[in-house]
């Protein structure tokens, strides 16, 4: 098992949990909020998609999101509530699929890719945490970050199911 295998394993796990959490949900259901200052599903999807774009850019691949979309879902951005401007959840779901496919394909076929230098200045790339300087470290940060946000989807999925009973 090498570095590519580790990242593929975790990305696949993330993707499976993520798709399971959003399956069959409507855009408005993805805006429901739990008590407190947590984020809704729409924000979490956009946030994950933007960090996936960060990995695509790092790897020298094409990114999918527009600059204003990335800004809307950046770390520390405002929560999204019903009526707020946001990207439609259908587009975000599509971004989640295409970015996953591209990353898995790259990890499958470019077996030495992770040993290259990240494209551009890593400090400007999405997901730079101050503790990473190599592509491998940046992937580890971004994929680990993604896993935690994927976990946030589970209670929101339950909230949607409960709301349907009312």
């Amino acid at each position, binding site marked *: 098992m090498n570095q590519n295998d580790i990242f593929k394993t975790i990305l696949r796990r993330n993707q499976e949990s993520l798709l399971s959490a959003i399956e069959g949900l409507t855009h408005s259901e993805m805006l429901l909020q739990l008590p407190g200052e947590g984020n809704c599903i729409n924000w979490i999807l956009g946030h994950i998609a933007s960090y996936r774009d960060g990995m695509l850019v790092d790897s020298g691949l094409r990114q999918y999101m527009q600059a204003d979309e990335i800004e809307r879902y950046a770390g520390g951005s405002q929560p999204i509530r019903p009526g707020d401007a946001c990207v439609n959840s259908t587009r975000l779901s599509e971004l989640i699929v295409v970015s996953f496919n591209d990353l898995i394909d790259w990890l499958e076929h470019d077996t030495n890719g992770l040993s290259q230098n990240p494209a551009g200045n890593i400090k400007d790339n999405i997901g730079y945490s101050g503790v990473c300087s190599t592509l491998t470290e940046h992937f580890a940060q971004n994929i680990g970050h993604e896993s*935690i946000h994927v976990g946030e989807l589970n209670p929101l999925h339950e909230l949607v199911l409960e709301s349907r009973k009312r």
Partner: protein
Amino acid sequence: MNHERDEAYKAKVGYRNLVETIGLSRIFGLMLGRNQSAIEAGYDGIEQSDSVLQLPGRSNCMNWILGHIAVYRDVMLMSIGKKPYVGKRELTLYGYGSDPIYEDSACVDISRLAEVLDGGHAILSEWLSLVGADFNVEAPHGLYVRKGDTIGEHLAHLMAHEAIHAGELGSLRELALVRMGKGWK
């Protein structure tokens, strides 16, 4: 001449394996550190009574999630030949498919769960910082869960599993803060 070439080849392969091992240790070290930070941020300042609060639906409470992560972290410890922290009682309470924990359920105090998670994190971090860690050895049989044939694959699954549960803590923390009067809603 052939002997020299063989030796040079072995040295090159050995170096490549060493670089790969250091790379894997770094990946797991970063992920474990990130998970632990998220876990600590989740339970920081939360009392036992707040740890059993429930969100709508079939989600688990914070106490169950922390115990569940502790059980699986013990699996990581045993995978690398270290002693586990928890026993059969905790496995029954927090293992896969165990019953949800409510206010009046038997459970482990959150302060003990925090100690277990902190201790496991320290041991795993130290192991990952050693150059000699071999991720291609076979994962031991007879573990509570065995998620891959090699230690590397097994740990990758367990780290991701832990991270996803760590993510579930965020909304439970918000719920506790709301109950404490510190939330905005």
